[in-house]
């Protein structure tokens, strides 16, 4: 029990394992094959990377609804660069820069206009979507994906030692870095402090505005990186991509122990939250469940997972 408090991600981890085992029992044998694990890990990359940034924003007590649009914009930027003949690394950098910039705009609006992040990012969600459509001329952009296509593709033969495609490792690395930042750096502590009690943080000399700015920027950067992964999956720049992604990312963070009120959240938990949703989706397809049943099941599992996790934590804290 004590572990749950110290490692809040254990709850969602258990949920993932339980759901996986259930599917492993009821679904056809191929569900448990190693390839399927790799596939599911790959499908989690976009949400997982974006969830790192969202965890930071939600720890702060904020929210970022623009993440889906930001990902779409980033795929477009990436595709435009690739089409213009830029090397893969440059295109990826440009996509991440566009994400960072969008995030910084969010941060600037939140801190200077002092409007609630919900409405700021609701606005930029629309605006960035429009920008993406405009840049892409309201079309999907075909572009060569050489150099980036290997990010989430299955490993070529002979590279089995890597276990997962590079994208998965990048996701794990970002999550690890962010988690370490939260624990081991001053900035990380300040993020949690602001989310826990902003007035207090300010009174203690935390430069609240600056920290917020940076966090929204970082979240944007991660959205940009997620966009690169998305481009590598789609191999086109798609301005209508990732509509509704924000809710999925937020759900991942909340399943992972995050709270919309700030001060709570875990990067590892968010990763498991993202994985949980992938497992449900894949498992349902394996079972050949009708779409509508799958919708109901997903809804039910998400609520149940969070309910169990919270009940456990409550029984441990009491009152």
């Amino acid at each position, binding site marked *: 029990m004590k572990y749950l408090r110290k490692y809040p991600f254990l709850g969602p981890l258990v949920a993932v394992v339980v759901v996986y085992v259930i599917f492993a029992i009821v*679904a*056809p044998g*191929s*569900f448990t094959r190693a*390839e*399927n694990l790799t*596939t599911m890990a790959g*499908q989690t990359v976009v949400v997982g990377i974006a969830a790192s940034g969202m965890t930071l924003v939600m720890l702060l007590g904020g929210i970022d609804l623009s993440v889906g649009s930001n990902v779409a914009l980033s795929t477009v930027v990436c595709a435009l660069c690739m089409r213009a003949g830029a090397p893969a690394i440059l295109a990826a950098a440009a996509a991440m820069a566009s994400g960072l910039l969008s995030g910084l705009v969010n941060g600037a609006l939140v801190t200077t206009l002092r409007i609630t992040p919900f409405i700021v990012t609701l606005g930029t969600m629309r605006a960035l979507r429009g920008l993406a*459509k405009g840049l*892409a*001329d*309201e*079309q*999907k952009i*075909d572009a060569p994906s050489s150099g980036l296509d290997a990010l989430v*593709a*299955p490993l070529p033969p002979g590279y089995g030692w890597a276990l997962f495609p590079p994208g998965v490792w990048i996701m794990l690395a970002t999550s690890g870095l962010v988690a370490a930042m939260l624990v081991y750096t001053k900035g990380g502590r300040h993020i949690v402090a602001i989310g826990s009690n902003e007035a207090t943080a300010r009174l203690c000399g935390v430069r609240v505005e600056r920290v917020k700015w940076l966090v929204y920027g970082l979240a944007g950067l991660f959205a940009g990186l997620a966009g690169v992964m*998305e481009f590598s*999956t*789609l*191999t*086109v720049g*798609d*301005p*209508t*991509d*990732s*509509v509704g992604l924000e809710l999925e990312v937020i759900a991942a963070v909340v399943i992972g122990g995050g709270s919309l009120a700030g001060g709570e959240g875990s990067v590892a938990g968010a990763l498991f939250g993202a994985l949980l949703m992938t497992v449900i*989706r*894949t498992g349902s*397809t*394996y*079972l*050949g469940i*009708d*779409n509508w049943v799958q919708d109901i099941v997903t809804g039910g599992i998400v609520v149940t997972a969070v309910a169990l996790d919270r009940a456990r934590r409550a029984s441990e804290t009491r009152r």
Partner: protein
Amino acid sequence: DGGATKIAVIPKGTTHEFWKAVHAGAVKASREIGVEIVWKGPLAEDDLKGQIDVVQSFVAQGVSGIVLAPLNDKALEKPVEGAVKANIPVVIFDSDLAGSAHKSFVATDNLAAGRLAGEKLAALLGQKGKIAVLRYQEGSASTQKREEGFLEAIRKMPEIKIVSDNQYGGATTESAFEKAESLLAAQSAGSGGVDGVFCPNESTTFGMLLALRKAGLAGKIKFVGFDASEKLVGALRDGHVDALVVQDPFKIGYEAVRAMAEILAGKPVAPRIDTGAVVVDKASLDKPETKAIVAPDLAPWLGK
């Protein structure tokens, strides 16, 4: 105001490449005839209420005529009747509409197109094997017709088994891709569980293509898709897609606006204008007549 003739053209969405070609066709017709067209779809793709709102706004605005690709055959009936009551004639294109308020219907025959696809895939498989269908979206009439036509053709072949036909790819490429990936794995496509696949529109076809490529099955499983885009044509060349059923979007847009202009000029038009569909495979790809359909030059019309 009594200004120039202004025709509102309302597609289902604005970002599919299909609609770009339709747009270009519409522009071509408008230039030839000398009318003004306003191109405006719902903001979000496949947003039924949004499309109704757009129609209502154009009616309130009092345009000369409305050319509409309804997202639903029934739901747009009332708004269209409203337009007609306000003395604004309506031409329907791409997907059909219930009721009789509109003057003409310009589109591909989707049921027939679906049948074409079914026959093609059956031929590719030599009339036997296991196939899977990745449907597009619940309640989308034109793709449902294609799926129906396809299944109808396939069911005539006793030795072809349909292993999955209840999975939907959803509105976006990414959702289609994820669905396709899981579907292929679930049916053990890699070890002969699936011999052929069919997808009823551009986004599902592309999503399936990505999934096949990722699983290393592209070219090994027979694949018939729908609609064309640069990447899909490329895949056809690579042999990753065996055939595409292609409509003529440019012609659809062109004919629809033409029909509207005729109506405004008081001339009679046919109630049903079929713009046809063709099966394109690697062999027929480079024929000039296919080229004009598959990759029309849009630049002169859309100005880019």
